[in-house]
């Protein structure tokens, strides 16, 4: 180190300056942590949402649902401010974990809400287990989340893939007398999970499985897969896609006349996707839906009315689900009189509540929400009462893996 005589700062000066600087930073940091520990600082709700990329429409509904629930309680709980810190996962696990870790470590977040993309959710769930952060998951399907990879700190609202296959695909097969099915699947964690659940169902139901084609996530040209499905000549084609991918494959399937030859099922859809594909494409096809804005429940009606008043458009089910679980989280926090995940987990596990589909419940032993799932059919454009009246209900079921069927054992 250069000496003062050489124009450099001396060692003593350097040490003094560093110590002073370090003390200042430490005081600030320690002050914040101390404030948090004493329950004086804001409660950070880390929103890990997919707000860019192919699922961005769904991501927006989710963020707005959280915001609406927080607004309803004036961003306050237990006399403390709630800060909704939103981070875009970009649908990439590594990016999501990095961003989440920063907020957890730098701002002391102990509550996380989100997300989109099962591959992202699994990575974030692992982080939450490590950091003991309570993760309220809205919109994720992989069976692993509340199955093999379950843990105390994660709760999931959406019906998971096994439930979807039994609650939507099974009635679809039964009601339409389907004897054979082929699948086209989005090649990532969720697609693989739902494909596995669907394949096992086809075996149980003794429906001929005419094969599967995997398509990369974000594919733009599905024509080879559709030609193959058309050649297979199955009674039904199950398209396991979400977001912009679902829209593209449905448009191209309609173009190629696949709807005329086979019944089409998209196991998991939503209003954002239906708006993008349009009524002509949705007509006559079948869709699995987690919740629907026209379902007659107090929560659905309340959220839809508030959303329409604020945003001048109809919300997808994501707004309803995130509104519900955000409200649930902070209501329970208020009742518990405490803002630590460890105080809330026992309250949430086994909790029955009013959700957008009706009476819902977080199961004690896997933290999976047990609720109805809807099989719906696309209406002809002439039968639509308004521009968002895309679907009519065909079946409503709530079939979930039993404790014996699920490897998760939290209670």
């Amino acid at each position, binding site marked *: 180190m250069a000496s003062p005589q050489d124009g450099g700062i001396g060692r003593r000066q350097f040490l003094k300056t560093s110590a002073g600087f370090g003390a200042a930073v430490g005081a600030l940091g320690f002050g914040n942590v101390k404030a948090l520990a004493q329950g004086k600082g804001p409660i950070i709700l880390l929103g890990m949402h997919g707000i860019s990329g192919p699922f*961005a429409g769904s991501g*927006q509904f989710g963020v707005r649902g959280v915001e609406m629930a927080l607004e309803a309680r004036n961003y306050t709980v237990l006399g403390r401010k709630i800060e909704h810190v939103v981070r875009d996962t970009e649908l990439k696990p590594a990016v999501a974990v990095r961003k989440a870790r920063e907020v957890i470590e730098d701002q002391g977040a102990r509550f996380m809400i989100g997300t989109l993309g099962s591959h992202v959710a699994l990575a974030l769930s692992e982080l939450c287990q490590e950091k003991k952060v309570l993760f309220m998951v809205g919109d994720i399907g992989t069976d692993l989340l509340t199955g093999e990879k379950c843990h105390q700190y994660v709760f999931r609202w959406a019906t998971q893939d096994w439930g979807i296959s039994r609650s939507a695909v099974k009635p679809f097969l039964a009601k339409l007398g389907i004897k054979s099915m082929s699948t086209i699947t989005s090649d990532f964690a969720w697609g693989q999970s739902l494909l596995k659940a669907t394949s096992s169902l086809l075996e149980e139901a003794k429906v001929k499985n005419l094969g599967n084609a995997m398509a*990369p996530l974000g594919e733009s040209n599905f*024509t*080879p897969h559709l030609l193959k499905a058309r050649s297979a000549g199955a009674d039904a084609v199950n398209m396991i896609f979400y977001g*912009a991918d679902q829209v593209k494959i449905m448009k191209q399937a309609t173009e*190629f006349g696949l709807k005329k030859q086979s019944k089409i099922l998209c196991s998991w859809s939503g209003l954002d996707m239906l708006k993008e594909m349009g009524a002509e494409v949705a007509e006559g096809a079948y869709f699995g839906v987690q919740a629907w804005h026209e379902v007659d429940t107090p929560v659905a009606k309340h959220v839809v009315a508030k959303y329409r008043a604020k945003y001048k458009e109809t919300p997808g089910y994501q707004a309803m689900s995130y509104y519900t679980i955000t409200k649930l989280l902070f209501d329970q926090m208020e009742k518990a009189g405490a803002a630590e995940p460890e105080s809330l987990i026992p309250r949430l596990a086994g909790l029955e509540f009013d959700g957008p589909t009706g009476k819902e419940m977080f199961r004690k032993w896997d933290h999976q929400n047990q609720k109805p799932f809807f099989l719906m059919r696309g209406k002809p454009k002439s039968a639509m009462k308004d521009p968002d009246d895309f679907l009519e209900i065909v079946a409503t079921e709530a079939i979930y893996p039993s404790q014996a069927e699920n490897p998760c054992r939290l209670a």
Partner: protein
Amino acid sequence: MNVDLLPQFVFNGLMSGMIYLLIAFGISLIFGMMDFINFAHGTFYALGAYLAWTVTTLVGNFWLALPVGAVAVALLAMIIETTLLRRLHGLHHTLQLLLTFGVAVMMQELIIIVWGPIGKPVSVPALLDGQVNLGFTYYPLYRVCLVVFVAAVAFALWYGLEKTKMGSLIRAGTERAEMVNALGINVSRLFTGVFTLGGFLAGLAGVLAAPLVGINAYMGLDIIVIAFVVVVVGGMGSFAGAVVGGLLVGVVQSLTGLYWPQATDMMVFIVMAIVLVARPQGLLGRA
């Protein structure tokens, strides 16, 4: 081995390739003339698609959307070139590349602000709805007509580049911009013309693709990657190369879908890598 499906998959690949051509032409032209990849090209394409939705929603006429979308995007391209890119003429091409990247990101966000984050639907025009029986397969009528239209555009471009004075200037500019400048031709205006034409082609492609894909703010990213591969495989700056590259990429994608569906994207990049190793200038590019 699914051999009897081969003819329809090869045909499908050729059809898909023709659609890629329209995007690839613009990139190839701009690269050939201005020596950089226009990253905003994909967003021009997305803008064309959104304008297709706007026009069809307002007046219910898809055919009107074609000239409106193409011309509007061309005008935007012209404005961007004259107000922004021109300031970087003579400077390192990396700066132009960075600028168009910034324009692309900015335009993508503006699309979300104006039209919202949820995508928009455009239907196939009623006149071209349905499938046509080609003997060995049933194929969407819209796509068949689209391919014929793209072939006509390709011919018009070829004619313009090969048989007109302007075309000869553009070709000369792609080979020796300094010499063309030295001969008293206003190369800046030539650049503007080429960039505008590239924008026109991207906007036109966006309108035509709108009924085939979901329109969303990120659709430009989907197409720019594949278009880039087409141009690299065919040869940067080569018109014929864009044609060959497009058809090859389309067929490879289609046949991979038949035999190894999860590798449709990967195989396209493998082909690009093989071409780059064997012939770095592309199949029909200049050495």
